[in-house]
């Protein structure tokens, strides 16, 4: 791990409060993840990649925006690792960068329909934009 990777890792761990060494590599998080097929990096990879400081590829990955934050991985993890919190921390790190908002107000019109609940837009902006 070089210095930059170390700093990134520390930041992610601090934000998420997750300790990736608790993971015993059982893969239950990825076995239960409903968004698995849409993700380039899967929940168990988030855990092991953060642990090894391999965070740059995660920051670039679309996987960040496919996590449903449904907490299935958190509740079903036998070791209480809480992978979803890692995904969230990495995503925040990505969207907090200048001009890195993943969802922009002008994109919204396309997804709106008559029944769209307000909750959907609020949640999406909170997840995808700073």
């Amino acid at each position, binding site marked *: 791990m070089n210095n930059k990777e170390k700093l990134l890792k520390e930041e992610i761990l601090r934000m998420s409060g997750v300790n990736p060494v608790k993971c015993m590599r059982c893969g239950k998080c990825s076995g239960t993840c409903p968004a698995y097929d849409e993700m380039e990096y899967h929940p168990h990879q988030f855990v092991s990649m953060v642990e090894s400081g391999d965070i740059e590829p995660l920051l670039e990955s679309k996987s960040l925006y496919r996590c449903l934050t449904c*907490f299935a991985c958190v509740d079903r993890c036998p070791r209480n690792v809480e992978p979803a919190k890692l995904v969230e921390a990495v995503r925040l790190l990505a969207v907090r960068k200048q001009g890195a908002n993943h969802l922009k107000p002008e994109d919204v019109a396309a997804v709106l329909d008559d029944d769209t609940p*307000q909750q959907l837009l609020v949640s*999406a902006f909170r*997840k995808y934009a700073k």
Partner: protein
Amino acid sequence: MKVSYFPGCTLKNKAVMLDEYARRSAEALGVTLEEIENWQCCGGVFTTSKDEVATKLSSVRALKDAALKGQPLVTVCSACHNVIKQTNYAMLTDPEFASKVNRYMAEEPYNGETQVLHYLELLRDTVGFDAVKEKVVNSLKGKKIAAYYGCLLLRPAGVMQMDDPENPRIMEDLIRALGAEPVVFANRNECCGGYVTVESPALAARKSADVADNAKAAGADMIITACPLCRYNLIKNGSELPVVYFTELLAEALGVKEDTNE
């Protein structure tokens, strides 16, 4: 009995009837929902990152408002409930977070004193399902109803502490109290696709179909939910079963569905 009530943005707009039925049913059961003043949007989702403070302030203000009145804070919308409950838990268990938040709070600090209840918990623990059963005027006998919990009501289980996250029964018990037959289906605690419908409609469609198909295969005639987003996703993605708010069912059974003023 009076409780503080946080309706949330969607219940004032696209899910007006979720709110309306909740209020009428509560009134019929002897509970007054006092809408807290000047509430602001809960934020829709709880950001788990420890350094997010500003986005959680509106929830804390609602919680503090209830604390000042000494009332529990009741929500109906699953998302509002999830956000407010998780925020309250963080205020209670993370002193560093609480102290940061309290720098934004006028006067007295708030440290997670308020009891956060979902409307279902209010029915189960305060009113009691037996009391609900007694007030039923239109029994829903013969209906086979699948209770869809989604992810927000139950998880994270350590924080939400509403029911067993893998084998919940609170909505099934309610359905029984209303005279109908609950249909347990495995995907009742799986995600509908949530906000990802904005990012990947195809993913949300698959997840919603998994839920709706599983409920149908289990033999249900309708699905009930507490979450406007779940309902939206299920309907939009072609659920063959009708998807209704649980409060509508409750109002129907209690005979307060048709409002004479309407």
